């Protein structure tokens, strides 16, 4: 048995705050062997990144290592001085961060950054450093390294940049790499390439990798060993296959069961019931007071006909000199009454633009949107007001979709007041009822959004969206900013809404398993065009387009689990 290249023993990190000592990491121990990829998984705030930062000696003040030991190749490194830690960082321990946009300096060429790093760590001549840099670029599969060497970061795509960051981490031939959410900011297809690259490099160079992620799919695909963390503590530690297929700890079990599966459509997600997080939703009660939406005239509530959106790329005084970027190109589909229509695609494929055009947040540059037979693009001001009453939207980022300076009560009451749905004296009662239905307490009404967690905020958004009793709900990546367990809760609420209230929905996501769980029919978008529309069943079983098949193929899956 080989020696572990890095061992963490009973590591505790503490942050002194005004309200006492806060310990984001408690008693964490794990080992990394050469050539091994260890996944560290957990929800936000679980302390997984903090552990990684402690290892590379990058804890932000006032956080500090309170107790425990970190050993690197038989040398204790947690009690070294700042200078000594700096020497190890980058040299012995490489780092890959989440955002490839900000981890490269935009003012230097890729080559300069690589050469500088190499010369900093290894005593080699400039020519030799350049040779090594070219070899590294080649190693991380950057095509045509000689040309790329002299280019700036903005000339690289997101995935390519992340490869360059990996090359930078490899410069000094480190023995351990800490990769903190290395693929979270990337599209699925690029994520797969980057993960493959990390796997390949680990085997080839025998470097030990700590892969911090919140994504169970990434863990299943990439890692050999996994450490599951929950609120600062390690709850389970072991070989990935074993932990995923036969989790021992309650938390791991519920976490795994909450991950959406692409294979089978479940009726409801199991709730993550660890740590008293369960909340009850009473959508059935809401249904009693809800007038059943009247069926649309044609059976198709929303018809989208060849809509196009162009954004100005280069402005000029003469219209003929202006250039445009076509974000959405001639997209047509329709959504039947009570249906959940999914729209998937990579970032930049125009799916959010479509949603915003249907929601009248963006003007339509060509084509028509019809709602219950009426053309939205040609409506009078009165008609638009009436249309807005019947549609609502749930946004991606729960931290920016609620006005931070308004109390929850005013947020939820705003649509009621604006559309004069209720007399003012009944509004407060309705708001309380809505909050109650989405599982928030009455006391929530008098608080401000910052007092809530991401999942709770998203529930406030849902309460606001339901206030006007809309017929049509647009969900723009409603769960992509949330943890898996919270995602399960929110998706369950949406499923309930759809079932009990007969709500028609447009559901936008880049996450295929989630789409599989939510949608009846799915449209696939690629570079502004809708390339395929299918029943969800058919699409996931036998996609027509090659691109769709590729997307399906690339999604990380929990293959070991039989759903």
């Amino acid at each position, binding site marked *: 048995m080989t020696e572990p290249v890095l061992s963490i023993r009973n590591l505790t990190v503490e942050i002194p705050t005004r309200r006492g000592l806060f310990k984001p990491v408690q008693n964490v121990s794990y080992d990394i062997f050469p050539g091994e990829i260890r996944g560290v998984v957990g929800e936000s*705030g679980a*302390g997984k*990144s903090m552990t990684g930062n402690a290892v590379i000696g990058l804890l932000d003040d006032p956080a500090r290592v309170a107790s425990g030991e970190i050993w690197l190749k038989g040398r204790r490194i947690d009690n070294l001085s700042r200078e000594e830690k700096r020497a190890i960082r980058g040299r012995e321990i490489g780092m890959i961060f989440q955002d490839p946009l900000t981890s490269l300096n935009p003012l230097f060429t890729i080559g300069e950054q690589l050469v500088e790093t190499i010369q900093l760590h290894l005593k080699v001549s400039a020519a030799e450093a350049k040779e090594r840099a070219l070899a590294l670029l080649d190693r991380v599969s950057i095509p045509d390294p000689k040309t790329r060497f002299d280019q700036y970061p903005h000339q690289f795509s997101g995935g390519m940049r992340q490869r360059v960051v990996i090359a930078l981490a490899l410069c000094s031939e480190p023995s351990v790499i800490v990769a903190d959410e290395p693929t979270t900011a990337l599209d699925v297809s690029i994520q797969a390439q980057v993960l493959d690259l990390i796997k390949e490099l680990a085997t080839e160079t025998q470097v030990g990798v700590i892969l911090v992620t919140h994504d169970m799919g990434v863990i299943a695909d990439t890692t050999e060993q996994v450490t599951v963390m929950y609120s600062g503590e390690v709850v389970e530690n072991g070989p990935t296959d074993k932990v995923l297929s036969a989790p021992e700890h309650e938390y791991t079990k519920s976490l795994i069961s909450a991950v959406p599966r692409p294979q089978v459509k479940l009726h409801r997600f199991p709730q993550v019931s660890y740590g008293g997080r369960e909340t009850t939703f009473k959508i059935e009660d809401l249904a009693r007071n809800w007038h059943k939406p009247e069926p649309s005239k044609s059976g198709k509530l929303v018809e989208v006909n060849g809509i196009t959106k162009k954004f100005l790329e280069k402005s000029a005084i003469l219209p003929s000199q202006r250039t445009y970027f076509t974000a959405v190109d001639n997209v047509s589909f329709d959504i039947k009454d009570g249906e959940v229509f999914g729209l998937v695609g990579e970032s930049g494929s125009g799916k959010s633009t479509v949603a915003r055009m249907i*929601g009248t947040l963006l003007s339509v540059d060509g084509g028509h949107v019809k709602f219950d037979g009426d053309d939205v693009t040609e409506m009078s001001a009165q008609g638009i007001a009436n249309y*807005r009453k019947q549609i609502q939207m749930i946004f991606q980022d729960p931290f920016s*979709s609620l*006005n931070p300076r308004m109390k929850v009560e005013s947020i939820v009451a705003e*649509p009621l007041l604006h559309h004069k749905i209720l007399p003012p004296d009944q509004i407060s009662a309705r708001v309380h009822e809505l909050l109650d239905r989405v599982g928030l*307490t009455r006391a929530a009404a*008098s608080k401000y959004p910052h007092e809530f967690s991401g999942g709770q905020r998203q529930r406030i958004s849902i309460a606001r969206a339901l206030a006007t009793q809309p017929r049509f709900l647009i969900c723009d990546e409603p769960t992509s900013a949330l943890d898996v367990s919270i995602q399960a809760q929110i998706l369950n609420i949406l499923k309930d809404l759809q079932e009990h209230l007969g709500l028609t929905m447009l559901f936008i996501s880049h996450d295929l398993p989630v789409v599989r769980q939510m949608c009846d029919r799915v449209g696939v978008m690629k570079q502004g065009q809708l390339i395929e529309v299918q029943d969800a069943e058919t699409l996931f079983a036998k996609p027509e387009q090659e691109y769709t098949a590729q997307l399906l193929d690339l999604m990380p899956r929990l293959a070991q689990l039989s759903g």
Partner: protein
Amino acid sequence: MTDQPISPQKEAPSATPSRMRRALDSDFYYAFRHSPVAMVSAVVSIVLILSAVFAPLIAPYNPFDPTSLNLMNGFTPPTEPNAFTGETFLMGTDDQGRDVFSTILYGMRISLFVGFAAVLFAVVLGILLGLIAGYFGGWVDSFIMRAADVQLTFPSILVAMLIFGIAKGITPVEHRDQMAIWVLILAIGLSDWVQFARVVRGATLVEKNKDYVSAARLIGRRPSAIMLRHILPNILSPVLVIATISLALAIIAEATLSFLGVGAPPTQPSLGTLIRIGQGYLFSGEWWILFFPACTLLALALSVNMLGDWLRDVLNPRLK
């Protein structure tokens, strides 16, 4: 998502503590209590402002009441009895026998009133134009911001003197003294709105792309409601910071204008007017007529400025 919330699922305590308790418990108050600079400058500003507001109660004499003046008391040095009348004055008297301490208190009233009013005027104008420019964009934005750029190319003192000159020309002689104060406010306010408009426009550009604004638009709220009810409350903290710093600058600007003789008239002297009067006697030995008003102006402007600096650090840590 990265690890941000300390305890993501913690339900906030359901009982709402009283407003006072919350204020004392806030991070803002905590930061205040741990910054000696902030506390000292807050105390100095508050003492100066209060003594200006309550000047009639504090001041031993009313410097504007001709009946209380005795020319014989002129040029009395501080704390020394006057050679003719035997009266003593804490900070001495000026050429007309007015108690310098009292004139400072009354002068500060005018300085502060002009400062506050001018900043308020600039804030209101700047916020309105900045919101409109940022929210609507396009040619409206270009028009407003170009006007702001043009405004910036003139030194603010020059603008103020220009306005002052025009106003002086069009007001009848008998109203000139009363008009002077309002013209000062207009002049300083007009030369100051640009920075508010710029900051507000920038913040509006950021805020208008956030989803809560989209949500309000989706509901169908009118642009005016979105700007005032949704965006404005979220951009007030940088405005507050600049307003505090501008207050110090406005007080100095007022003093400068008054010193140059285009500001507050000698019958209603502000700190600047007092300094102007005093500087005539500096070389003939009556230093106190200049010294005390100048010190007061320094203390006032410095403490307000430091308070503004501290506010900026607390509310806008990234600007440090």
